[in-house]
């Protein structure tokens, strides 16, 4: 008996989700050309500032966290407590 296939089991659907995401991102950055941004701080008004900042922030976050793992990660029983005791 083969198990029922679910929506995201089809690579085609995953591709659709990704395409929607890319399109929304492109549209959002393009919108910056068509309205007057009400900015409190000067840099807020730069073209695509929020999008670029969000992207860069997340990449930095993940890469730094990955580096942190080298320094801070220990086996689960490091403090003498068993992880499977739940």
């Amino acid at each position, binding site marked *: 008996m083969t198990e029922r296939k*679910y929506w*995201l089991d089809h690579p085609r659907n995953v591709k659709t989700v*990704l395409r929607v*995401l*890319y399109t*929304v*991102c492109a549209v*959002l*950055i393009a*919108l*910056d050309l068509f*309205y007057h*941004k*009400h*900015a*409190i*701080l000067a840099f*807020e008004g730069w073209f*695509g*500032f*929020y*999008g*670029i*900042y*969000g*992207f*860069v*922030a*997340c*990449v930095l*976050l*993940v*890469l*730094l*966290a*990955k580096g*942190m*793992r080298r*320094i*801070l*990660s*220990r*086996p*689960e029983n*490091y*403090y003498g*407590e*068993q*992880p499977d*005791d*739940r």
Partner: protein
Amino acid sequence: MIGELPPALLFVIGALILPLVPRRWQSTWVVAVPVISLINLIQIPIGVHWQVSVLDYELTFGRLDKLSFLFGLLFHIAAIIAGIFALHLRDPMQHIAALLYAGSAIGAVLAGDLVALFIFWEIMAVSSVFLIWARRTERANRAGLRYLIVQIASGVILFAGIIVRVHETGSTEFGLIGLDGLGGLLIFLAFGIKCAFPLLHIWLTDAYPEATPTGTVFLSAFTTKVAVYCLARSYPGTEALIYIGATMTMFPIFFAVIENDLRRVLGYSMINQIGFMVVGIGLGTELALNGAVSHAFNDVVFKGLLFMSMGAVLHMTGRIDGTDLGGLYKTMPITATLCIVGAASISAFPLFSGFVSKSMVMASAAEEGHTIVFLALLFASAGVFHHAGIKIPFFAFFAHDSGLRPGEPPINMLAAMVIAAVICVFNGSYPWLLYELLPWEAPYEPYTLTHVITQSQLLFYSALAFTLLMLSGLYPPEMRLLNLDIDWTWRRIATRMALGAGRAIDTAWRRITGFLKWRLDSIIADVYRHHGPRGVLARTWPTGSTVLWVAVLLAVYLVIYFI
């Protein structure tokens, strides 16, 4: 007529009656008490109530203004939702703990003086730990004990602060305090521990994930938000809070990215969200303070929703680590959807609750010219979407298929999550009711074109970053590891130092007793040499030596006589 009774009293009475309620109705009782208390609360007029004189002090158990009403209302809603989530539970210990804990949190925000606040502060600490111990595992026992030590320490520091404050000012008033004076500093520190300030935060991420699936929902609502209320009451506009809060928004997101236990991820994101509130209180403008308290309101609901969805996963699968989960959307689609609503709310998507409250704090930071803080908050906003908004639903419900096929959780769990989700969407789409309740006059319009587009850009490009990192394999995989946090300093270093000190004391003790024993041995050996079987004085029998001495005395006597 139940009108105008102290809500905390209703909860305490409710907890005392609970053991008499038939076992199968006890969990219903846990929902009924906050419902009755809520009806009572909205009948209480604004003003000061229930003053009791004890010794020389007047304790005030009811100070109702817009600020305390907002938190009182919030805590009732939270207690009702968490109670519904726990309706399937048959555990009197947790029921009693939950009622006392919720009641004391409400008592704390309604307290009109510091002594009354202290009383509820301690009841909160002691009652809440039973929600952790109720897990009944060795891990939970130990985590609960560590939690209790920190909570009691906060209480002791608060008490010391109150004594110094009374000495300094002669008043126990729970109003504006500020950092001048030792009393103010100590009270600030006590609040800071419960608020999970950086370096004082570890009790939260250590203990909350070890509580029961339902217990964590209660825990996430009260302790830290009472601290936020206290800071808003006593330390608005304290500049240090801006930087403390900004740090709180930043550092936990790094831990959240690499943490495996999904409820611990939520614990870190909780500190991150409280950071926004703390910044708002530190900025101290009316808009910022409104932002801080409205975000507290929204946070309790959406963080509760996220903890509930993870509690449901834990309840149904017995697992909560990212490495064990994945693909659950297939058999838990409703839970997955509700989790995503919570995730969208914490990430501040337009139409979801975080959008209408967090932005008040952000706008105030910009208006006050705190550029660096503003950029930090923006970084943290992207980060929170990344770890709480994407990571939580992604690793639990999507990602690789874990092969687990649990069903949806019990209907009461779903109902509680639906209520929380409705509040998230309602507050996000129609914020005016929430704004009506806010204590300060500061008009704010969240739905401007600029705000909607910029916030959407921030979030969608964060999602894009996540997607590209995932596809490229750069994203750190979930691993069965724990991450060292500040608790390393005492759980490892201090433990080692204590053990080392113990060994040193042991060695010193052995040396000293060894030396004393050696001295005693040599004294005994001396006595033995002279009086032992071969000693000079032991060669003759006592009668013989007596005859000898008598003969000597006689001889001496005769000699003296003849002279």
